[in-house]
């Protein structure tokens, strides 16, 4: 479902972030990417949905190569969740969720925040899925960190993506909220069959929630195994 071949990325200032990443992810899998800060996790995810342009290599999503011509299609098939939630603070939760539908909305009416009734129902369903139906019309800056991330998830799943890209979704949260968010992702993975690619930096969380763990060091994959087979001590050593 996702195939990454020899992906490289060097930033304009000369920083090499990815040095030939190879990765295959099957439909319905929950895969965690573990790696230290600066190892290239964020850059890898952002290359998949076109927020960064790769310097070399290929990415195939759903058997189609990701490039400038297919990027709209790719963005329709993927949803993204961010460490800092990246909600628009002055907007209500439901308006934030509706921004997940902008690419398929009326290009003119949407500028004035006008959406169809069906779209609003979809947004409410999405908020119900993450348990925030009651908070739909609260401004997002009135919500707690964990609740904001749930709005972020509702926004990402509203268009029913094949692939969810989660960039350290729990790094800004306390352990309890972190557990809730990852359980929620796991539930979405199981019930909707959504493939999930999730950057994490805690070995135990990765082992607990994902089917497979990929270790990234200095822009290269150095580890790629089923969660059950993981030797936690070994992982913590390469990771710390």
């Amino acid at each position, binding site marked *: 479902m996702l195939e990454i071949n020899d992906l490289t990325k060097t930033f304009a200032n000369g920083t090499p972030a990815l040095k030939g990443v190879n990765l295959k992810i099957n439909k319905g899998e929950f895969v965690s990417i573990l790696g230290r800060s600066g190892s290239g996790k964020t850059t890898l995810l952002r290359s998949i*949905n*076109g*927020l960064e342009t790769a310097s070399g290599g290929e990415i195939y999503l759903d058997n189609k190569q990701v490039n400038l011509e297919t990027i709209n299609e790719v963005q329709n098939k993927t949803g993204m969740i961010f460490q800092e939630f*990246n909600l*628009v603070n*002055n907007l209500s939760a439901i308006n934030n969720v509706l*921004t997940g539908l*902008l*690419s398929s909305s009326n290009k003119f009416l949407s500028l004035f925040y006008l959406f169809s009734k069906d779209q609003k129902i979809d947004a409410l369903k999405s908020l119900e899925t993450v348990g925030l139906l009651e908070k739909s019309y609260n401004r997002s800056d009135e919500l707690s960190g964990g609740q904001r991330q749930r709005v972020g998830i509702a926004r990402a799943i509203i268009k029913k993506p094949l692939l969810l890209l989660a960039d350290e979704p729990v790094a800004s949260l306390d352990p309890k909220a972190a557990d809730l968010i990852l359980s929620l992702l796991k539930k979405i993975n199981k019930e909707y069959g959504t493939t999930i690619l999730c950057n994490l930096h805690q070995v135990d969380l990765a082992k607990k929630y994902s089917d497979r763990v990929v270790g990234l060091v200095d822009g290269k994959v150095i580890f790629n195994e089923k969660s059950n087979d993981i030797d936690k001590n070994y992982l913590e050593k390469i990771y710390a």
Partner: protein
Amino acid sequence: MNKKILELKVNNNKKDLEKYIKPQWSFKTLISILVFVFVLIFVVKDLEINFIKLVTDSSKYFGDILSRMLPPDFSNLNELVYAMFETIEIAFLGTFIAIVLSIPLGLFSARNLAPNYFVYLICKTIVIFFRAIPEFIIAMILVIAIGFGAMPGVLALGLHTMGFLAKFYAEDIEHINKGPIDALKSSGATKSQIISFGVIPQILPAFVANNLYILDRNVRMATMLGIVGAGGIGYELQSSFRMFEYERVSAIIILIFVTIFIIDHLSAFIRSKIK
């Protein structure tokens, strides 16, 4: 992690630590203060301002002008209030024009939103140009071009403060949080959708506060614009000065003060209601 840090060992004695002490006021700060004082003294000398003479003489002159200004002459208050109202209208319309014109200019003179460098440069140049020319001068030119009345006042305020507002907006836009923009991009939003959902909500509180501030400022400026023939209370003020009717001058000044006082409180109230 560095082992030494974790052991919490402190084995520096007093003498060793003394080497680390730096003066609380750095050399640079002291030099800066000195330079500033020097410039101040130079400017006062160069402009031949004599403060002692100013204080001793002023009591004499002030007493004289004050006695001629009192009591304020409110005999034709209706006329004055009407002129004041015209001034407020000029400021209101001028501010509205400034807002409308400054929105596209502000968007495109923000480096992160301008479609290309050429557009950025043109917008930025327009912004700087109109900010550089005081509204008085714009009004004088317009009075010559289109004649006396409210119109030159409105346009002068609109054009000058358009430059101000566009600069404010552009700076606000350049400092927005980029996270939500990434989120919008990742879901395939178009550029105008990104502006509508990612940029505008983030700058809206500052937008309203800036507009109110400019309205407040334009009312103050509009009171003066009449002096060059651009309508409003300033015209009354100037004719009273010309006719040596200082008692009317003081009445007008009081009226201006009351108006500004009310507007100041009103805009502070509105601003406090906006988050």
